[in-house]
């Protein structure tokens, strides 16, 4: 059954509404959002509240529901 969620881009404040299945994985969500914003998906984590969503999990396993707001957070490296 399709659900609609919102994914925020922490670097710009922009957000996208995404339509997807509860069997889609978190990696697919990150990939879709990262591709849309021309970003490297490997450089980001996705959060729901205080929790990092693990890439291989499905939305259902991760407890993501209709109208949830997730946030794409960069995972930088300094040297």
């Amino acid at each position, binding site marked *: 059954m399709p659900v609609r969620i919102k994914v925020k881009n922490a*670097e710009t*404040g922009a957000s996208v509404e995404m339509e997807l299945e509860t069997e889609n994985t978190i990696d*697919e969500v990150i990939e879709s959002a990262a591709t849309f914003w021309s970003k490297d998906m490997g*450089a980001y984590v996705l959060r729901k509240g205080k929790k990092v969503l693990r890439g291989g999990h499905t939305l259902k396993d991760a407890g993501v529901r209709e109208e949830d707001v997730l946030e794409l957070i*960069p*995972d930088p490296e300094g040297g």
Partner: protein
Amino acid sequence: MPVPRPRIVKETRRPVAEVEPPSACLVRPHEWLSEESRSEFESALRSGRPLPLYISEKAERKIREHALKYAPRRLEVMGFLLGEVSSWGGVTYAIVRDVGTTELRSSSSKVRFDPEAFPKLFHELDGSGFDYVLVGWYHSHPGHTCFLSRTDLDTQRTMFDQPYHSALVIDPINRDIKTFRLAGDSYEEVPFALFPSAEVEAERRPRRRKLKIEPATMG
């Protein structure tokens, strides 16, 4: 049957508010600026145009104390610059109101967030109490002076590639601090000013004039 790929149906961009930057009589240069950087700061202030970046004294104190805490062990520190993007007189500038960080995996030449400590980072982001934009990131170069290494530049290009995104580098051993932005294939130093948090926060609220809304585009 394969699961269909996620489909993006709408993008909403954050409006850039037309807000006057902190006034020249309230801002000041950082005490650790080099002579050259201080000269750039004074020149930028004299121009009457908004500086590229304004950092609250509260955020600056947190960055400096974070860097100094780990300086004796020569460990790098890192965090996000939380703020907002505004425009005044056709010039876009960024305000840093707070910072967010967590436990790190760091050495004298590398730093990352500890993957197990993201919940603490998210707690800090939520605890900032405003609808932040990550207007950049900070990290320290304990004893190495302030510049962007190849790793830093990769991070800037990959994650902080908007014109308002800054990289703040602080050297707590040599007492130096600089802010940088991307410039073509490389990067350049940009001047920044410190502002007293309470006074400016109070001053900015009633001076909001209008919103410049950018149209959303798909793809």
